[in-house]
């Protein structure tokens, strides 16, 4: 996806590809773009990142994989939970 100008309306998605996130299923998010509703596709900017260090901050139920939707951390992330967060942020 091409990098867009970050505006108030852009929703920035950062998918952590650190070890713990990868082991617990981060690769599923390579299909995230395919599940975006048409109305949000132009607003969502997806990035893959090196380890965000969230595994050191969170524990217990808040397991990897971690995805950040703007500044919000989605723990135990899945495509449905990330989409739900995107919709919330988009005010959908």
């Amino acid at each position, binding site marked *: 996806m091409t990098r867009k100008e970050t505006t108030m309306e852009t929703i920035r998605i950062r998918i952590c*590809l*650190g*070890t*713990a996130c*990868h*082991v*617990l299923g981060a*690769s599923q998010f*390579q299909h995230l773009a395919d599940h975006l509703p048409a109305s949000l596709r132009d607003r969502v900017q997806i990035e*893959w*990142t*090196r*380890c965000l260090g969230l*595994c*050191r901050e969170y*524990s217990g139920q808040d*397991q990897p994989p971690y995805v950040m939707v703007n500044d919000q951390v989605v723990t135990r992330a899945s495509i449905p939970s990330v989409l739900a967060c995107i919709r919330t942020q988009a005010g959908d």
Partner: protein
Amino acid sequence: MLASLTATMALEYMSGDCMIARAAEIIMDALPICRTRRISYSTFSIVDAAADGTVRLIEYANPPVLLIRDGAAVEIGRIPVGKPRWGGRVLHYAEIKARAGDRLVLVSDGITQAGLGRADTPLGWGYDQMARTLTRQLEAAPDLSARDLSQFLLSRAIRMDGDKTGDDMTCACIYFRRPRPLLLLTGPPFYTERDAEVARYLERFDGRKAVCGGTTSDIIARELKLPVSMDMGNFDPEIPNTSIMPGIDLVSEGCVTLAKVAEILESGVVPSNRNGATRLVDLIQQSDQIEFVVGTAVNPAHQDPCLPMELDIRRNVLKRILRLLETKYLKETKVTFI
């Protein structure tokens, strides 16, 4: 079976410091003789290369060992050695002084006779034509490894035989060159005060460099002020993506990648997909001296009981890799825990 027996005998005698000529005589006396063709089974070529560059060759009934020097095939003077009890069978003995850059190529006649009886090569490939093919290949790729050169020769011979081998084909290449060193750094130092020291060591290392681990690569990037970015070229669901850092040959993830490397080295089969693990195996196989610098700081994020047990047992995985490199792959290794 007889080829295996011959090779085993030769290896045992050589490792027991038996003189190469004496070893060859014992083998000649031991080998059975074909009643029809009146030659021994099996044929053999023995190369004994010493650290000072002295190379002794003993050959029996194989195509002559080929010496390629400065891009050209060089004739080796051979002395025939026969004994009355061998009934006309003759050994050939030679001694040369190898120079840096020399290559020795040993082949069985299945390779020089590849294509025998086919329309374009009725008499087979031929020794001289094979030699010309090799020198042309080395002209195009002067730094070709011994492994790649033997693979090239073998696959060319198989193709000439119509993609099926008419006779058994054996090829060995020896390349006299400087050892290739590789430094593999994985894990942050136990004491953060040593971060700079490790980074400087890596920077000054004269050879190829691999950094395995996100935290480790962050340390190097910070200390050496290098940019690091994720390589999204190939996405592999099993192995985390590699990163890119200038001056470092490979920046990979740590534990998962190294565990896969151990698995690949154990099986001996390298999968065809390109990921951090297969690329690291490639680097390792191309190197002769591999130095491991292993940080012993524990990653608290990997202590979560919900994660697989293999994560962060870095020491155990590395011990496995070291054992394999030394025993199976005959690499020189060195390890420092910091």
